């Protein structure tokens, strides 16, 4: 009976099933909380973002498009709730399409593809050769799937800096991972 998939739970939540929301919370809240903790030191902001995430799920579960992992969708919502909190005020429309729709990660280049498959091999080693600020920028944009604007808020640096760091980080990775290729 508790073998419903995440997507099926979302369908039930959209139909107003509170028990389904509870079940989804029990499945996902824990790891989301830990992952948010890795992005922000304030326990209050993280707890608020996680609460907002499941309130948003309750109100807009029907907007899940059914493509991709529910886990990735949930992460996309919660990291954006956290960024809203970091901006000091809630998003004007907490259920806007920018929140719910952008949550499916977009793979947009060969480098991103490589990074997604990051393990203990070459990519991990290459990542470790980067200075910390470049790694943090890569994490926010590629791993978390944030826009440069959102990454700027999360990292507390200007947008232009995010863009330039990202450019440098990607070209260094490319040199290490695909030495034969020129861009």
């Amino acid at each position: 009976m508790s073998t419903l998939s995440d997507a099926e739970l979302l369908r039930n939540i959209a139909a107003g099933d509170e028990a389904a929301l509870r079940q989804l919370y029990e499945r996902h809240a824990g790891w989301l909380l830990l992952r948010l903790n890795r992005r922000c030191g304030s326990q209050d902001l993280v707890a608020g973002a996680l609460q907002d995430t499941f309130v948003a799920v309750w109100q807009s579960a029907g907007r899940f498009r059914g493509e991709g992992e529910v886990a990735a969708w949930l992460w996309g919502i919660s990291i954006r709730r956290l960024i809203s909190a970091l901006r000091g005020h809630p998003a004007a429309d907490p259920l806007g399409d920018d929140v719910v729709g952008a949550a499916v990660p977009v793979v947009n280049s060969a480098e991103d593809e490589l990074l997604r498959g990051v393990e203990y091999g070459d990519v991990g080693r290459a990542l470790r050769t980067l200075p910390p600020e470049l790694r943090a920028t890569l994490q926010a944009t590629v791993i978390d799937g944030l826009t440069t604007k959102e990454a700027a808020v999360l990292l507390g640096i200007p947008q232009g800096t995010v863009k330039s760091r990202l450019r440098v980080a990607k070209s260094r990775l490319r040199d290490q991972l695909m030495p034969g290729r020129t861009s």
Partner: protein
Amino acid sequence: MTWHLGPELLDRYSDGDLDLARQSAVETHLLACADCRQLTSAKAPQDLLTDIWQGVQIATARPRMPWPLRLLRKLGLAETDAVILSASSSLYRPWLLSLVGAFVIGVGGTMMPATEQRSLYLLFAPLLPAITVAAAYDATDPIRELAAATPFSKLRIALLRTATVVAIALPVVLLAGLALPFVGADAFAWLLPSLTLTLLALTLLTWWTASVTAWVVAVLWLTVVGILRSAQQLSAVDTPFAQLAFAVAALLALAALAIRLTTHHAPGGYA
């Protein structure tokens, strides 16, 4: 899946003890692996998760709306505003107050001698909306906590409550007046004094509690009516001069309220 998260890696991830490359590897894996998500979730602080879940439950609770709100909802009140208002059961008291007040005016009026009927109506009708507004700001109000926990402007909540209460009280008192034969032209004469008293009550509520405000406004109006009655001038309320005086007083009260609001003093201590 070529590998899964071992116990050591899990511990180090939940402690925030991994370098960024490994951390990213763990997080990428977690998105794709439900088993490892479950193991990771067990490492999260369960007390905090319980607290957050309670917050989710409160925020998603949808109590059934009382009938006056459902009526206002049909008349165009926004869903979000209705939900905020319905979170406060104490709105029943002001609504009940306006209904009982109208009933007292009606029944009391028929039992009084004809000469006293007008003063009774003029005494109670303008006071009723002002008192019901004050009652809507009672200190035991659960919406107080809600106001602290929601992104809704506290002022917006305060003024919404006022509008909701008046929207019920005003027609009730007006209908009572129109239905009673002894009221006649006075059925409308009390509207401007009532507006003045309600604005005055809202302004006073930025300083005082609901009960103090209600008493002050009531005593003030009683004094005005008492003076008029002892001077045999009760009918003066209908005159253009008196109505103009009430309009000026209403504007003054509105200006005072606006000053209090712009200095962040919302009625009922919400600010």
